[in-house]
């Protein structure tokens, strides 16, 4: 995230505040019994994403990650959930009232929790999130592992295509029947694995020369702080949660 984006007050919230919001949505869809509420969480998340300037990415991820799955799940429940009230029947296939209801309930909750989760990572950089976890007690080595992984993945993907091209020049076929394609897998992945494993030794020496595993308190070059916005948002969520629970008990 650029420095300009940092002036946005949603992006500026402390990572754990945003995580609590995700947990708040996840909990509340189990407190409120109607599926309308859970479905309404998608537009809520969308509005927050747009306000944070992440609307487009949010929609793409929800569409690619959740949409097809939800349609599948809904059809599965509609057709196969055991029920007595049959709405439509053809041969062994039947749609029941109970199935549709169960399908709506299940998909609404997956959609709500899924989109809250996607929203969290759209408005929180992993760097900030890991920093806040470190403040909560995650060992610095754990933080290193997560951040290093995020760096290594694109690097290795690049290396994969280099190796694949090299093997193609050598005559390894990557097109054709399934057996031919399957045979290309090993010559691609084994040089990749062996070379990247060997590089861990050099990385170990480099890190050790900077006292990576020295048993001292580590300092940070990069820090983030909680603001009064965080307190306001947290109290707001607590009040909303109490209202929802009270409503569930009284109604």
């Amino acid at each position, binding site marked *: 995230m650029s420095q300009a984006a940092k002036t946005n007050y949603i992006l500026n919230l402390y990572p754990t505040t945003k995580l609590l919001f995700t947990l708040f949505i996840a909990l509340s869809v189990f407190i409120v019994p109607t599926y309308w509420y859970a479905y309404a969480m998608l537009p809520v998340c969308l509005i927050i994403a747009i306000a944070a300037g992440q609307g487009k990415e949010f929609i793409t*991820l929800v569409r690619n990650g959740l949409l097809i*799955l939800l349609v599948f799940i809904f059809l599965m429940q509609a057709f*196969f959930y055991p029920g007595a009230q049959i709405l439509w029947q053809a041969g062994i296939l039947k749609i029941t009232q109970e199935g549709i209801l169960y399908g709506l309930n299940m998909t609404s909750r997956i959609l709500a929790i899924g989109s809250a989760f*996607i929203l969290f990572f759209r408005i929180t950089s992993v760097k900030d999130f890991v920093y806040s976890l470190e403040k909560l007690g995650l060992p610095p080595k754990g933080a290193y592992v997560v951040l290093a992984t995020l760096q290594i993945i694109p690097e*290795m993907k690049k290396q*994969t295509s280099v190796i694949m091209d090299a093997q193609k020049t050598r005559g390894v076929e990557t097109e054709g029947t399934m057996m031919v394609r399957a045979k290309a897998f090993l010559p691609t992945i*084994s040089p990749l694995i062996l070379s990247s494993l*060997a590089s861990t030794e050099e990385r170990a020496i480099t890190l050790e020369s900077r006292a990576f595993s020295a048993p001292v308190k580590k300092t940070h070059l990069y820090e983030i702080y909680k603001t009064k916005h965080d307190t306001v948002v947290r109290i707001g969520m607590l009040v909303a949660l109490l209202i929802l629970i009270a409503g569930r008990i009284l109604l």
Partner: protein
Amino acid sequence: MKTGIKNDFTLMAILLIPVCVAINMVGFQIAQLLRLPIFLDSIGTLVIAMVAGPWVALVAGLITNLINSIFNPVYLPFSLVSMAVGLAAGFLSMKGMFKKVWKVIIAGIILAFVSTIIAAPITVILFGGVTGSTGGAITAVLLASGQQIWTAVFSTQFIQEIGDKLLSAFICFLIVRNMSDRYLSKLNYGQIYMKD
């Protein structure tokens, strides 16, 4: 070398985690590029389980799913599966199950069972039996032919896992066999695979 959960997280093991997580993802990507019908997304976890032990592999499995779930939250509950596969592979390797071809086959079958037993309940309870992959169609056919949801999901899952885990285990066997003794000697569980 001292082993166990307290001693396994050496610097070398910690540095292997990011690499093996990346291998998991790249393995999946290559399988997609070559249009293979299996995932091959646990090769990194198996390799790290063999050379750095079950506990490090458990963490590698967890991180793989956490990072995948940044883009697709469906992966999140399946972290348990990756963790269990890492743990199981580590213990199998300690028993020498990745040293001979016939043992690798048995290890692959055991790993397929482990991941089925953990993945199927998650699929049924959280997602009602489908997770959007091609397996959904098989599950639907089994359900339509009158099978119970649990039987249907267990069978689908096992059919998908068995090929995947057998092949992954075999690939890891070949890769670890090619590692140099000099490198293996720096890892807590490397001596299992040293040549003499």
